[in-house]
């Protein structure tokens, strides 16, 4: 199972380090120059953060309770949002990739809407549906006394709304790239579609799911617009790191730099750790 699984998603990258030996000859300038420009473009702003960071007061700024509170909230909500996305997004991706139904193209287009929607607009849309006077929200409040805006649950919903398409598209891509013959073989042996999904498909596309979940988590962690619009901004309850950064920028750019660095460091450490353990595989 493992060799075929690695051909989805990560397989291409793993062959990456080798090709210099496989294809001899000069590396073409037409590729090297834009590649270098691209790298500088992506890395330079990070360097800017590092250069302007107030290193002397870094420790005391990080020790402020509000900072850790925001960081904790960001990590917790992004993780829960990713779990929700996995729970709902993987079956959705499977449906799109494996089951032919009439409106499939339309459904796929609709699912990617949160990708192109400005997050603030997404937040307003969530308010109109799940807000206190929203289509579903007023019913939730009347029947169960549940009000989602301005709560931590609201943060999770806003993040999941914005991040789920990343997971769905990534997993659907992995499913389409997976070798169908293995599923067909399982079917000829009498396995039901549920068993095939659980025992064949899921292990086959596991790297794609992990890659999608990582993207999803990263997007949720950086979420700003939908969160501040739908869940508001209250320290300890809905103020995630990006919100704290934005408000710090209003008065104290140095504090904003510190917060950004912290968020950056934590996310890089977690993603690098995950990559070693899961994405590259044992």
């Amino acid at each position, binding site marked *: 199972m493992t060799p075929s699984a690695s*051909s*989805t*998603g990560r*397989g*291409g*990258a793993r062959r990456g380090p080798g090709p210099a030996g496989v294809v001899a000859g000069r590396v073409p300038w037409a590729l090297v120059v834009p590649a270098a420009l691209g790298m500088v473009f992506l890395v330079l702003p990070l360097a800017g953060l590092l250069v302007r960071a107030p290193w002397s007061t870094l420790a005391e700024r990080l020790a402020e309770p509000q900072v850790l509170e925001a960081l904790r909230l960001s990590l917790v909500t992004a993780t829960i949002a990713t779990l929700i996305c996995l729970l709902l997004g993987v079956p959705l991706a499977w449906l799109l990739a494996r089951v032919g139904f009439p409106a499939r193209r339309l459904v796929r287009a609709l699912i990617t809407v949160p*990708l*192109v929607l*400005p*997050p*603030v607009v997404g937040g307003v849309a969530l*308010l*109109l549906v799940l*807000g*206190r*006077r929203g289509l579903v929200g007023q019913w939730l409040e009347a029947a169960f006394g549940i009000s989602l*805006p*301005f709560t931590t649950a609201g943060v999770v919903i806003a993040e999941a709304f*914005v991040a789920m398409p*990343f997971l769905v*598209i*990534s997993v659907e*891509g*992995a499913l*389409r*790239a997976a*070798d169908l013959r293995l599923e067909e073989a399982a079917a000829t042996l009498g396995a039901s579609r549920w068993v095939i999904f659980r025992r064949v498909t899921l292990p086959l596309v596991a790297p*794609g799911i992990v*890659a999608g979940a990582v*993207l999803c988590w*990263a*997007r949720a962690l*950086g*979420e*700003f*617009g939908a969160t*501040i*619009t739908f*869940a*508001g*901004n*209250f*320290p300890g309850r*809905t*103020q995630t790191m*990006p919100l704290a950064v*934005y*408000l*710090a*920028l*209003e*008065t104290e*750019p140095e504090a904003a730099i510190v917060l950004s660095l912290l968020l950056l460091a934590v996310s890089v450490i977690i993603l690098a750790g995950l990559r070693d353990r899961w994405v590259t595989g044992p």
Partner: protein
Amino acid sequence: MFRRVSRWAAAVPLALALAAGLAGCGSSDPATPATASSSASSASGATALTVFAAASLTETFTELGKTFEAAHPGTSVKFNFGSSATLAQQITQGAPADVFAAASPATMKTVTDASLATAPTTFVRNKLQIAVPPDNPAKVDELKDLSDSKVKVALCAEQVPCGAAAVKALDAAGLKVTPVTYEQDVKATLTKVELGEVDAALVYKTDVLAAAGKVTGIAFPEADKAINDYPIAALSKAPAPDLAKQFVDLVLSSQGKDVLTKAGFEAP
């Protein structure tokens, strides 16, 4: 067949990465709006004027901008409305602005401290009001009602002028209010009332008037202890210094005063 397919698989993360970049741009937008379009004014012909103004001036300055364009044919006035603190930040970072109108002396001071403006003039003052949805679901009628934990309140974040004013007013009344959210500017705070998501918010009287019909305003005596002075200044590095001075003159003229007082601002 196998190779073909896996090549597509490799393309997926790339497409996603691109999408992520786009989404990222979208989310960082509120921090740096409208600076790119305003760079046109740096041309030496100076037919474009760029005004950075507090969000609460949106309606009045847009009207004054039209008046200015009518009086100076061929000139176009571009506005960047936002929280005064953000605008001050953008100006000190080199955004090409000609005029800055702030909702508090503190945010103007950021700009004068950086020697980017001298001698700002206070042109209006603004007072807070309690804004409630038209049906006033929580039956709010005075400031004291906001301290009830059952009343959902939105306040501006303390970092922006309307939030600082709210803190001052509540302190003057000796009240402790725990809002459900600290919004990033006064318009965002008002929106939460318009959508009925909160029962009350502290916003400027002018914002209540601008949203007439969608929210109801309630004046309260403690507002007199938290009056915001609005300073305006032509910026010393203005790409269009002459136009900048003329626009400031228009705002300070009796014609400008008429527009501003009609919207609920008070004379300084």
